[in-house]
């Protein structure tokens, strides 16, 4: 980007400046012994054109909506349309959550996002002995299609998209959503949304398990195929790095492992015989936005560039939309503190800012009280307002990729791309992500990074305001959300009512057919949809999978 002579002059000037810098800090030493990002990456005192000497604007940075998409996947980005403000919500019963959905939509959110409770996430009904004490505590309890119908009552699902954070039983919940829409006269061709449905990162990080990796991949490929043929506006998978980061990985690990998971899913679909352009445009991603401002922005830009290169060169995709890395972002839950919780508003704001400057398609901002409990209405509203203020008052959405060209940012983007590719190559050499997971490779990398980070905090190498610095005795009181005690009992009673008023022989037949299909090669989405329409419960369907595919247990990697 600069000619040789210019660079030589800059190099000479820079050398002089570094000497002056050294002199000035010899009298009073630098503020810290080591300047590094949250992930531990060392940072220079200054970045100049010298750091970008090998960069070619057109080839490496480019223009929005054009390969390699560093500056954004769509040509118009936020000038055309702001990111979707999509607040993750779920609590108690379907009725409770429906209320919260309406509140958030009225307050201005532009997309729905569903959090389920642990039993639902793990494929158990509320009345399972394993579910004792867990109903509605970290999300909404869904046992049958009836709950799904209540959950979205009164919401314009033909005009607004819905994301569902659900993994092992994703196919079941998706089937319930489709069935619910069709009951309301809304065609499956019209509904839009996302199911997370990314089991590889479960084995690596989030750890909601049900069946072993191979059958899990089969089920996921079934959903991708079903999406291509039946639900064209839906993202059948949200390939996630958020949880990998929450488990303690570095930013580059989050980037690399997520994209390596993506490669595995593409390969699985291709193995099924699908054409890459028939499904790739609907693959979506989900990243974390953590505290280190520039590292995160660089990560998002590097992600787009890496994925575009992989889809073009490795998988030979022809449709330009197959090269787009579209992603949802959530601000980092693990960066929030229980001490001085109002500080969390500031953390979330800065993390949201990084996500927007990074070009996210959709954003969830955490509430200040989420370290203590599920968010209250007030806290969730502040989190939503954070996005709205960023969008409309601060001016950063006035132009596309405003930080593009920053020496610091472009250099970070390059470095992260290089390091991520190194990880991806290593994983390829292990035989791909499924093999790497069996060898516990990503799990151990993450465990080591998490332990290192904790030690840095304990030793005060990294500051956490309110926790290891500026600690006060007194805490401002924060009102938190309570889940009512009778919820579990009520939900069990309610589901029993559903079970007694449905046609039980129809359910039995549907489950039987599902079992047979599971043992064969048929696409399982069709029999799952039939089963949910007959009001089979989530666990009844999942138990069929457990029987046919086996149960995966935590290998306990520490």
């Amino acid at each position, binding site marked *: 980007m600069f000619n040789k002579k210019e660079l030589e002059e800059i190099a000479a000037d820079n050398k002089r400046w570094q000497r002056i810098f050294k002199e000035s800090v010899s009298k009073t030493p630098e503020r810290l012994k080591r300047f590094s990002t949250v992930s531990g990456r060392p940072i220079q005192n200054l970045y100049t054109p010298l750091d970008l000497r090998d960069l070619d604007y057109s080839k490496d940075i480019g223009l929005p909506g054009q390969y390699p998409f560093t500056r954004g996947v769509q040509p118009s980005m936020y000038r055309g349309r702001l990111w979707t403000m999509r607040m993750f919500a779920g609590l108690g019963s379907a009725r409770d959550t429906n209320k919260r959905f309406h509140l958030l939509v009225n307050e201005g959110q532009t997309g729905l996002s569903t959090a389920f409770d642990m039993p639902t996430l793990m494929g158990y009904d509320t009345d399972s002995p394993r579910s004792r004490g867990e109903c509605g*505590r970290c999300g909404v309890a869904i046992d049958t299609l009836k709950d799904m119908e209540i959950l979205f009552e009164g919401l314009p699902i033909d005009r607004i998209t819905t994301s569902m954070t659900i993994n092992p039983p994703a196919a079941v919940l998706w089937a319930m959503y489709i069935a619910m829409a069709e009951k309301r006269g809304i065609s499956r061709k019209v509904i839009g949304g996302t199911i997370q449905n990314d089991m590889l990162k479960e084995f690596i990080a989030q750890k909601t*398990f049900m069946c072993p990796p191979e059958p899990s991949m089969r089920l996921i490929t079934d959903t991708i195929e079903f999406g291509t043929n039946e639900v064209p506006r839906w993202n059948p998978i949200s390939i996630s790095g958020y949880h990998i980061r929450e488990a303690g990985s570095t930013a580059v690990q989050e980037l690399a492992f997520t994209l390596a998971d993506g490669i595995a899913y593409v390969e699985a679909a291709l193995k099924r015989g699908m054409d890459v352009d028939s499904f790739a445009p609907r693959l979506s991603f989900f990243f974390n936005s953590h505290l280190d401002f520039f590292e995160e922005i660089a990560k998002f830009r590097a992600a787009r560039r890496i994925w575009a290169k992989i889809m073009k060169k490795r998988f030979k995709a022809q449709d330009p939309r197959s090269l787009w890395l579209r992603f949802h972002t959530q601000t980092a839950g693990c960066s929030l503190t229980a001490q001085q919780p109002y500080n969390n508003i500031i953390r979330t704001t800065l993390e949201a800012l990084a996500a927007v400057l990074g070009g996210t398609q959709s954003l969830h901002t955490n509430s200040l009280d989420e370290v203590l409990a599920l968010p209250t209405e007030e806290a969730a509203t502040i989190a939503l307002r954070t996005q709205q203020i960023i969008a409309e008052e601060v001016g950063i959405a006035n132009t596309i990729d405003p930080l593009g060209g920053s020496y610091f940012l472009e250099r970070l983007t390059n470095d992260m791309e290089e390091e991520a590719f190194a990880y991806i190559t290593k994983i390829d050499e292990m035989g791909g992500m499924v093999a790497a997971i069996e060898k516990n490779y990503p799990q151990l990398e993450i465990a080591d990074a998490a332990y290192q980070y904790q030690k840095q905090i304990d030793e005060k190498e990294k500051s956490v305001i309110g926790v290891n610095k500026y600690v006060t005795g007194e805490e401002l009181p924060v009102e938190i959300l309570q889940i009512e005690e009778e919820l579990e009992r009520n939900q069990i009673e309610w589901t029993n009512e559903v079970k007694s008023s449905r046609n039980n022989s129809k359910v039995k037949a549907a489950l039987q057919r599902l079992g047979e299909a599971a043992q064969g090669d048929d696409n399982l989405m069709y029999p799952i949809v039939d089963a949910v329409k007959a009001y089979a419960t989530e666990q009844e369907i999942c138990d069929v999978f457990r029987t046919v595919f086996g149960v995966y247990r935590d290998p306990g990697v520490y």
Partner: protein
Amino acid sequence: MNKKRRLRVLVAKPGLDGHDRGARIIARAYRDAGFEVVYTGLHQTPEEIVQAAIQEDVDMIGLSSLAGAHMYLFPRVVELLKERGAHDIVVCGGGIFPEEDIPKLKKAGIKEIFTPGTPLTEVVAWVEQNVEARR
């Protein structure tokens, strides 16, 4: 030899909660402090935890919860220990707890609750001061 006996500790994840970052970090911290740590992995029922604690003759059980089901799971572990005559095993907990649940848990027999932000050194020091090898 009258050395202080090495502590044996069980680190357990009760219930369906899969957030094990903290549990695995604390296990490493305990190991670095010289304890023998039995780690039983995710998705343990209170019954499985107590059975393991007895077979392994541990001095303390550390329970980790970040998905809100602690008010049933933690007291249940204490209850089962009492039923099986192992009430001298100390039970403590770590994770995410609303402020008002903490005194309730302590009343139910959880000796200490560690919330996010507690340095590992503090947790280890507490264990060393409050837990003894069972006789």
